């Protein structure tokens, strides 16, 4: 079986940053929770990225696989009530480099704002989908925040 590898745009961004990172092959998974199980990790060590549509463009919200996104909190953070989850059709058009449902917080369409849930910063390293459902990216949480220009916030449901 040939693994569907991380897209070149993602690898190039990581290479330019000269940071340490890993690409981990795994059987195909379609959720961050399943990815965590497959890799033998706790769900709080694995992040999922949720793409949101706002009047000012896309926002990628990154939170632990163990948590659920609180849209009410996100709307307050972004100071707009007009914030919705991106549909599959929108995702397919906006992120052709990535498999549907595997958008990472890095690379792809430029200009997206990124929000990272503070809970992820409790771990030095974080694992997330590398733009494909068959390979994960592990990097330092601090590098993820810096590279993505993310804003730290509380994004999870209480």
């Amino acid at each position, binding site marked *: 079986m040939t693994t569907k590898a991380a897209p070149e745009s993602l690898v190039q961004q*990581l*290479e330019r940053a*000269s*940071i*340490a*990172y*890993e*690409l*981990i*092959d795994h059987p195909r998974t379609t959720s961050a929770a399943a990815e965590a199980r497959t*890799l*033998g990790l706790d769900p709080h060590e694995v992040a999922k990225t949720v793409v949101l549509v706002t009047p000012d463009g896309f926002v990628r919200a990154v939170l632990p696989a163990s948590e659920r996104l609180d849209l009410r909190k996100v709307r307050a953070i972004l100071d707009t009530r007009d914030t919705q989850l991106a549909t599959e059709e929108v995702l397919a058009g906006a992120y052709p480099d990535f498999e549907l449902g595997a958008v990472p917080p890095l690379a792809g369409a430029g200009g997206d704002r990124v929000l990272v849930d503070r809970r992820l910063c409790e771990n*030095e390293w974080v694992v997330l989908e590398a733009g494909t459902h068959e390979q994960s990216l*592990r990097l*330092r949480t*601090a590098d993820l925040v810096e590279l993505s220009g993310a804003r730290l916030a509380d994004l999870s449901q209480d």
Partner: protein
Amino acid sequence: MDRTAQAPRVGDIVVISGHRVGEPGRTGEILELLGEPGHQHFRVRWDDGHESLFYPGSDATVRHSTHSRASTKGKR
């Protein structure tokens, strides 16, 4: 990556230091050398048993093992 006098070899140990006080570093054995010089990366088996392609950053060092081999073929 810390450029040591010797080039990395299969069997060498990759060490990534912890960034925060009390945080343990991570170590793994190089199973395969990949890429060109300057863009070299490794297939590594980490101390927790998992394997991955590892692209070293500035905080990674390679500890040469007396059992290391120059071969780029993976040790299986």
